[in-house]
């Protein structure tokens, strides 16, 4: 019906029209999805919907992608596109002409001329329909207003689910746990040191920072060094707040029985495996003159022996050693930036731990079973007592 030049021109125009309509519908869909996501984030921030509702609705919105993709373009826009380049309706008449029509050669020849002329004309872009323009403006306005509100309320742009309670809870928790001495208001504290384990979870960071890893391993070895020194009966490294003099007279030892305060550590000679007279007398096995103590010392030569078998271990407090090492590492890493809160006493910690693990505690109600030996002794005692009376 139409010549090759007109066919090529129409094909080019049809391709541009198809691309434009498809890109327009996809862009409109993307903008509407973004606006809906912002609205859902705002609803989550206001506490109107939960996480499940937010994700369900967002998935529903995402599922409209095929709907937007298959949305048919307005057929009138194609006709308008054709009539823009074919003002005399020559090509349209040629396309509508039946095969073998008398006017076909004339329409074909005229159409070729019209196509050559239309190829030199750059068609004007059609304005966006009013409904589409309104949707675009509404979506853009929603996105702008939502992000501005997020910046004002949450202090940052929000993409996805956001809950004000969660972020506030996290902030308060962090403020209570770590209070900066130089800034009395915890809310002003920015840039709290990142905990080491959080950084260590990233394998790339671990690979990229071998110096940090070496330092961490050294600290780990320091902790183990305490144990090793205890097993071998060596004196530990002097720590902060302890007497550092090697071989000096040890501080006053705890009274016999080991019930004294745990701060009374023993000196170098006292931990050498042959306790002197200043070494506290241990309860039970492991004493200086006890053969079982020597046996324990021999057991310590091999791997796998416990901390409690080490010489002098019973006179010391294992928790004190660990705590000293922990405090040393914590002070080295954080300096004065982080201090433990003053309000958290040991009793409160115990109460919190008891409350936390109370739900996990296994309760088994067992009938009291009386030991027959104890019952016989009690009965004999009562008989004897009655006889005396």
């Amino acid at each position, binding site marked *: 019906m139409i010549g090759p030049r007109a*066919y090529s021109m*129409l*094909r080019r125009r*049809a*391709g541009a*029209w*198809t*691309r434009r*309509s*498809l890109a327009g519908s*996809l862009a409109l869909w993307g903008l509407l999805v973004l606006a809906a996501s912002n609205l859902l984030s705002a609803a989550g921030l206001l506490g109107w919907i939960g*996480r*499940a509702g937010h*994700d*369900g609705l*967002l*998935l*529903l919105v*995402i*599922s*409209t*992608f*095929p*709907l937007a*993709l*298959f949305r048919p*373009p307005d057929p009138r826009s*194609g006709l308008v596109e054709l009539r823009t380049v074919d003002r005399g309706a020559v090509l349209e008449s040629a*396309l509508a002409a039946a095969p073998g029509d008398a006017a076909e050669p004339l329409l074909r020849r005229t159409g070729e001329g019209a196509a050559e002329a239309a190829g030199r004309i750059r068609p004007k872009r059609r304005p966006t329909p009013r409904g589409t323009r309104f949707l675009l403006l509404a979506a853009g306005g929603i996105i702008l207003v939502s992000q501005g509100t997020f910046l004002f309320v949450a202090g940052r742009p929000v993409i996805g*689910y956001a809950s004000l309670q969660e972020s506030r809870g996290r902030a308060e928790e962090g403020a209570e746990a770590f209070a900066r001495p130089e800034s009395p208001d915890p809310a002003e504290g920015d840039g709290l040191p990142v905990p080491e384990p959080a950084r260590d979870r990233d394998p790339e960071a671990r690979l990229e920072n071998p110096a940090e890893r070496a330092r961490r391993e050294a600290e780990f070895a320091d902790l183990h060094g305490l144990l090793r020194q205890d097993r071998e009966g060596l004196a530990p490294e002097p720590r902060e707040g302890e007497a550092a003099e090697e071989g000096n007279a040890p501080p006053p030892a705890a009274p016999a029985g080991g019930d004294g305060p745990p701060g009374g550590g023993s000196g170098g000679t006292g931990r050498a495996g042959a306790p002197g007279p200043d070494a506290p007398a241990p309860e039970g096995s492991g004493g200086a003159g006890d053969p079982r103590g020597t046996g324990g010392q021999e057991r310590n030569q091999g791997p796998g022996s416990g901390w409690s078998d080490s010489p002098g271990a019973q006179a010391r407090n294992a928790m004190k050693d660990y705590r000293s090492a922990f405090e040393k590492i914590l002070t080295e890493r954080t300096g004065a930036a982080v201090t433990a809160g003053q309000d958290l006493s040991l009793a409160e910690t115990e109460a919190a731990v008891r409350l936390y693990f109370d739900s996990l505690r296994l309760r088994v109600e067992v009938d009291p079973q009386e030991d027959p030996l104890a019952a016989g002794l009690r009965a004999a005692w009562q008989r004897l007592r009655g006889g005396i009376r």
Partner: protein
Amino acid sequence: MNRRILRAAAVLAPLGTAALLMPLADRPLPAWAASSLLAMAVRILDGAAGRAFGRPDPSFLPEAPLWAAPFAVRILSLLSAPGFPDLFTASALWAGFYAAAAAAECAASFRGRRGFPAFAAALAGLAAFTAVAGSPAGTAGAALTAAGLVYSARRRLAP
């Protein structure tokens, strides 16, 4: 009753029942497998509903995933048991798979061929590509494939 409502109910009822009765998966499926299974299930249900209640439009109906979306959250989370970011990836994969496979069916129908084999072939190809290339690449590939197929079909309709 309106045929559209009946068709939607025919898709929603089995999916909702499956979502409610499906047990928790001990060994979760990958996201691409869960998404392609769900896309195929929705297509089968939609085809059966179309045969039973008639199609109001001879062209492919893209609203079937929209009908199935309320239950897709639970089904995808049960099949692949991911966290929320993975769930979004799986849902985007599902929508992309369905769109691309539907576009392939649409393009095949325009060429006078049967639609369902084209749907299944496109879905299998995209699932295999996603299994090799990963979920983000699979999502992008499915979306681009869908857009390309729709574009080529519309170009073919034009003179």
